[in-house]
């Protein structure tokens, strides 16, 4: 059977098979190393879809922070409806809970998704 391996000095860069649930806690943006999570502030990047389009950055961040119950920073517009923000939480589980609260606030946010990382599909 032919051996299908990556060649040369570059290590394999296949996509990591991170389950979505694990990704929430171990987002690449989180401060703690994945192997040894340490308590402390972590940052989670997410995108929210507003029920009503807005470009009021401060207002969007304030609403996200109010609903999530943790500090939120506005990062970037993605489209008229979608906006990228960061949540600052005491620990990963606090961010999980904050995201849950955002997802339940359907009057303000039509959808809430993690702003995850994508990688090149090269071996």
């Amino acid at each position: 059977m032919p051996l299908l391996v990556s060649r040369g000095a570059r290590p394999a860069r296949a996509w990591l098979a991170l389950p979505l649930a694990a990704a929430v806690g171990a987002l690449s943006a989180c401060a703690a190393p994945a192997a040894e999570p340490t308590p402390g502030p972590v940052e989670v990047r997410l995108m929210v879809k507003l029920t009503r389009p807005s470009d009021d950055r401060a207002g969007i961040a304030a609403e996200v922070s109010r609903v999530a119950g943790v500090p939120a920073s506005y990062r970037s517009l993605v489209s008229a409806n979608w906006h990228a923000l960061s949540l600052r939480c005491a620990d990963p589980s606090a961010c999980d809970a904050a995201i849950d609260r955002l997802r339940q606030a359907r009057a303000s946010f039509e959808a809430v998704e993690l702003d995850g990382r994508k990688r090149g599909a090269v071996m």
Partner: protein
Amino acid sequence: MRRMNQRVAALAAAMLLPLAAQAPMAQSVRPAAVDAAPARVIVKYRADSDLMKKQAMTATGRRTLQVQALGERIGVALAAGAGVSDRSHVVTARGLSSASLAARLSALADVEYAVADERKHIVAAPNDPFYASRQVDATSGGPAVGQWYLKPPGPDGLATNTAPAAINAEQAWDLLSGGVGSPSLVVAVLDSGLRFDHPDLLANVVPGYDMIAADDSNGNGAGGSDFSTANDGNGRDADPSDPGDFITAAEKANNPNFTSCDVSSSSWHGTQTLGLIGATTNNAVGIASVGNGVKVMPVRVLGKCGGYDSDILVGMLWAAGVYSASELATLGLPANPHPARVLSMSLGSTGSCSQPYRDAMTRLTAANVVVVASAGNTAGHAVGTPANCPGIIAVAGLRHVGDKVGFSDLGPEIAISAPGGNCVLINDGEPCLYPIMTTSNSGAQTPVLGAAGAIYTDSFDTASLGTSFSAPLVAGAASLILSVKPSMTPAQVRSALQATARPFPTTGGSAGIPQCVAPTGVDQGECYCSTSLCGAGMLDVRAAVVLASGVQAQISVATASPTAGQPVTINSSSVIGAGQSATYLWAIVSAGTTGATISGANNADTVTVMPTAAGTFTVSLTTTDNNNYVSTAITAVTVAAAPVPPSSSGGGGGGGALGVGWLMLLLSAVLALAGVSHLERRRAARAVSGSARAVRKR
């Protein structure tokens, strides 16, 4: 009264004109392709034709007399061209296509045949030195089979310099105008940016953008100060140069942005994927590319340890030119002056398609933008995202023999498969036999500038393997499809790719490999593909371009106001594919009340129909090109009644119906005055009416 009748007839004709014109206009009528260059046809006369008896002092003079006679018969000014044989020569004309002229001449009794005198091009492999097979060793790069993946498919083996999974791009180029992809067609490559100093990439690149924002945020959306991912010291800007995406051990240990990534050298991933679509072809330098002349636009969305969804989404929407002015203003981005029709995305992650990508795809599809993405490289697991998003053409990777390459993911979301490179490797130090050769840079971390840095991946340390290279081959194929038919929608492009894909092989893989199965959560290496897991089949670019450029029958009614008793001229305005000719067949589908019949030949690009009465008839045109692609169009034509001839008595030219009516009214009044009952009046009226009909029949 005569003048009044003429006015009525004119008014009626004016009222009917829109009706007559409306039916054929309902078709997407497009003028036949008439080049500025004259139509050129080779005509051969029948041996018994009177035209062969024309006498002149010279052969040229004789041909001139012959074409004058031909021209009078078809109503087109013809000029005689060079002789081909004693009974055949070239004929030229202006104002119509070669196919149209050939069809008209073919219908003449004197003509044995008339065919378009088409320009042929040299069919040859491009002269890019790495395209062909050659000797290879550890210092001269590779692979020995050259750019095997672009060549016509053939049996496995170095002797034939090809492979069953090869995508047949070389023979597709011959179908294109000038032998190249459309320079007005832009493919955006959303990746790690580009090394602009690579000499094989200069000709086809249009300005792109760097969409990688800061990793941190100052909280107001205006950026931050941590540019770890971007690695260029700044956020979004107009420079999509690739500064390298290496990760050192120290960075992995200390930078929270990189903890999930491996220590690695720079990949020059964007330079590699873009080169497959946009490297300059036939320039005697380096490699050929599948796009062969289409424009490529680098949109930098991947940096160190990949890139964020938010940057990728902004890159997608900007590249396609779908952002509104207010969105651009809020983002602080300029409008994209070169909106892309195709997005190539050799990136992804595991997981389901998230809502922002679904929303982006809705906008991109509405804007007629084709999006192609790699399946992923987790060795037979579920298709990654965004490849698994609705509307995206997801591409799985094949080995050179056509079975699934071990690293490729698979699943029902896959639209089509294309080579991803494979090594057939046994021992270290031996060359990788079937990698995807493309452009790159020699820098291990930062780029090596200039000629020293501009390298090509090879069979050794820099072999390119991955579904990252399958997707650009499909994106390039899509760009060629749109080069020959820009009007195609993303769904039509997908359909063309899938309808022409070659079947997956069931033999030829490594001994004992299994059939592929749906992802189960465990690795699945090399296996035989099925259409339920690897898409419609193996990409065949030539077949897809042929299908896209195939004939499309269309009808246009030349007679402005079809009228009973007058001939109606109907033309083909069929769209004929690149390098194709066509034959035509007309038929009356339904004559209705018109009594319409075809007058004369029914196999030219124009037909004459003779209606005898008012009403609507329906005519069909079946156009067949020389690849035997068939297209049929049907059009309804409304025919007005013939103008009423003026009466010689000077009165009541309107005809019997009115006369009978007046007669019955007059009779009814007389009978009423005479005290005749209602029933008796009706009997008397029927008798008058019957007499009048009998008169009209006579």
